[in-house]
């Protein structure tokens, strides 16, 4: 507990939105504060209601200011403490992904900050808004190899959307506000603010307003935000669509990040265009809708990938043709006579695949403009032949797996969970096979229910992300679908779940090893399971969960028990842990090998294939 006698208590006001001071100014403008208090006040003004972080020497003044703020304001900004700073980072990311708000993490200098590098890079790669506050050694000690010193502005500069090192305390409050602005504007991303301890301890006058100039950034944001889709561009789009017989919407995470889900759904339904989504785009379109063809790409559904092969007009929205979608860009969507591309980030236009119609700007505005144009011009076109084709693809090449196996198949477990959650639960994952099975077999009726490390592919994401998501959405059932490899990475966060009494459901699909690695080794390395088999390990996940306070911790080993156990697991009131011993040889299918065109898709033994992959020798050294 804080030592009240020595701490000067300052009342920090609960949030007011910065930049729009009610009644002409911030109620605290002109008061004297420490840097730490200013940090907390700006957090409050920005609407922060949860901080994820781990304390330490160089951030102590700010932790103390948070403590005092919470004492004065009834725990309005609880500090959630992980087992490891990486956990805090993924909690903040999970919070941000589930809520759409900026996630906030706060850690100390040196190792605290370097442990945050992975979540920061992960959030950058998936465009997740975060503000990460790092303590730093005092300005006079910077560069002296001081205790717990690390060059965080250099390290994070390479992985974050932006990083500030605050050496002039008079710029602290402006910097904090600017960090939030940068994190949430344009293509969102993580912003790191590195704050030396003496800057936190500095005392000065709080202005209650102001931001850094960042004139170039702000001007570009303004230009892109204001870049409306013109009538003539909309007309051209509908000319292309009017020539098309087989249009396909290819939807990425940008639609979710850009809050353009309702416009996208309206557009797809109005124009009756089928939709494929990327891993990050899952939830942008209701997976239970007839037009939904689900995920495309390396482990996309066969029918989604065939639809990509067959379409003659591909409309990419907030997607970026990455290598897991377009392994071979030159042969991606080979029959598409035209490609349209809408994104908030101009650097994604033409980066991988040339688009002959594109628009850089807010997706909600652009999609709405297209929708308006379609309605006012009365656009209608009969795509019924294409719909029949797509419906046949969905039926003929439906997802399937070894339903007769005596071993528990992971897809079966997910289907049993999905039957009960009906596309309304928040699902987080680690990275690997379980992640792909979850992407393939869960339904999502809404955006921000599917939280996964897409671009970076960070194992260990699932459990801390679930914690963050539960803080963001207290009303939702949160399920972490994890693998035995992935959950090991941040297993310490099991304790965080029970410490905060979060009713998170943790599922470990245990296949005794790194299943996706094994799958690649079987396919491309003649079955040599280098370092990926863990069947001889002594780990007892049930005991681990129990040791961390899980009152429900069950190992599921018999197929016939699956429905009953899944039922009681989901119904358990409180944190629950379920380890499922799955078929260790279950594979993820379909699979388009890295760098391969969709014609080389392997659909496995249980999904039909309309083409036979050529048995070309794969150069296993060059693929990734």
């Amino acid at each position, binding site marked *: 507990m804080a030592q009240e006698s020595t701490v000067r208590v300052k009342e920090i006001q609960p949030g007011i939105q910065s930049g729009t001071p009610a009644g002409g100014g911030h109620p605290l403008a002109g008061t004297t504060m420490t840097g730490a208090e200013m940090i907390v006040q700006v957090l409050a003004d920005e609407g922060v209601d949860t901080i994820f972080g781990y304390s330490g020497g160089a951030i102590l003044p700010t932790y103390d200011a948070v403590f005092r703020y919470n004492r004065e304001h009834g725990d309005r900004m609880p500090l959630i403490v992980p087992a490891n700073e990486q956990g805090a980072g993924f909690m903040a990311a999970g919070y941000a992904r589930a809520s759409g708000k900026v996630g906030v993490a706060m850690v100390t200098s040196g190792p605290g900050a370097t442990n945050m590098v992975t979540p920061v890079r992960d959030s950058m790669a998936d465009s997740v808004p975060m503000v990460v506050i790092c303590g730093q050694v005092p300005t006079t000690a910077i560069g002296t190899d001081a205790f717990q010193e690390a060059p965080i*502005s*250099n390290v994070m*500069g*390479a992985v974050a*959307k*932006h*990083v500030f*090192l605050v*050496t002039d305390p008079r710029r602290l409050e402006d910097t904090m506000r600017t960090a939030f602005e*940068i994190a949430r504007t344009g*293509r969102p991303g993580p912003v790191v603010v590195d704050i030396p301890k003496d800057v936190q301890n500095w005392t000065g006058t709080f202005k209650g307003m102001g931001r850094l*100039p*960042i*004139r*170039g*950034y702000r001007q*570009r944001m303004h230009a892109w935000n204001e870049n409306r889709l013109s009538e003539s561009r909309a007309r051209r789009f509908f000319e292309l669509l009017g020539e098309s017989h087989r249009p396909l919407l290819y939807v990425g995470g940008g639609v979710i990040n850009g809050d353009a889900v309702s416009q996208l759904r309206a557009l797809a339904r109005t124009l009756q265009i089928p939709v494929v989504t990327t891993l990050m785009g899952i939830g942008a379109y209701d997976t239970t809708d007839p037009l939904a063809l689900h995920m495309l790409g390396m482990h996309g559904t066969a029918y989604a990938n065939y639809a990509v092969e067959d379409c003659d007009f591909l409309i990419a929205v907030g997607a970026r043709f990455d290598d897991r979608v377009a392994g071979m860009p030159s042969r991606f969507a080979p029959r598409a006579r035209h490609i349209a591309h809408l994104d908030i*980030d*101009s*650097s994604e236009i*033409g*980066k991988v695949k040339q688009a002959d119609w594109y628009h850089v700007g807010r997706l909600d505005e652009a999609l709405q403009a297209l929708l308006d144009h379609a309605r006012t011009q009365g656009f209608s076109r009969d795509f019924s032949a294409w719909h029949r084709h797509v419906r046949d693809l969905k039926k003929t090449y439906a997802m399937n797996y070894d339903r007769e196996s005596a071993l528990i198949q992971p897809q079966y477990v997910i289907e049993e969970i999905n039957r009960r959650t009906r596309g309304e639960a928040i699902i987080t994952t680690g990275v690997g096979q379980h992640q792909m099975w979850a992407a393939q077999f869960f339904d999502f009726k809404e955006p921000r229910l599917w939280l996964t490390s897409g671009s970076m592919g960070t194992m260990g994401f699932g459990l801390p992300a679930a914690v963050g998501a539960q803080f963001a959405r207290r009303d939702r059932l949160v399920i972490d679908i994890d693998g035995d490899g992935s959950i090991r990475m941040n297993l310490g966060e099991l304790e965080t779940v029970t410490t905060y009494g979060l009713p998170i459901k943790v599922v470990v699909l245990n296949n005794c090893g790194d299943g996706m690695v094994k799958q690649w080794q079987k396919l491309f390395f003649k079955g040599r399971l280098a370092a990926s088999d863990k069947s001889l390990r002594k780990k007892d996940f049930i005991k681990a969960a129990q040791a961390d306070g899980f009152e429900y911790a069950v190992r599921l080993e018999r197929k016939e028990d699956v429905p009953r156990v899944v039922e009681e697991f989901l119904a358990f009131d409180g944190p629950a842990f379920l380890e499922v011993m799955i078929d260790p040889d279950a594979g993820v299918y379909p699979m388009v090998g890295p760098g391969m065109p969709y014609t080389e898709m392997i659909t496995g033994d249980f999904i039909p294939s309309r083409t036979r992959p050529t048995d070309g020798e794969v150069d296993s050294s060059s693929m990734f």
Partner: protein
Amino acid sequence: MRHIISILLDNEAGALSRVAGLFSARGYNIESLTVAPTDDPSLSRMTIVTRGSDPVIEQITKQLNKLVDVVKLMDLTEHDHIEREMMLLKVVAKGEDRAEIKRLADIFRGRIIDVDDETYTIELTGKADKLEAMLQALGSTKILEVVRSGSMGIARREVVLKF
């Protein structure tokens, strides 16, 4: 193809390393890089000479435009422009060579800015290829030291890179 990219950059700590870091992280090459404050002390102007295909150059400019510190940029090669680089050159200058080197420096409009019994230090300004021509022309002359500033440039006439 060779491109000269001029960047107005906020004069902030770490700004230079973020630009340089972007090039190394994305595998773009930097042939030369020069940077100094402008008449507006809050702004630096950086000139980067790089090589790449059109798609690569397009990515370079787009990625640079995403850096918060970048205020504005211009690919000078898209405009009629003037390019200059300065070189300081220390050569062995003894006996009969002294007159020959002096004459060569004059031909290239270089200036000898320091002299001792055995060396000349020459200052030469021009486009990068002119500096290279001078180095070629020196032939068998022993070069002790070469210092080049890296290229900088400015667009001609009304085209101005200014915030």
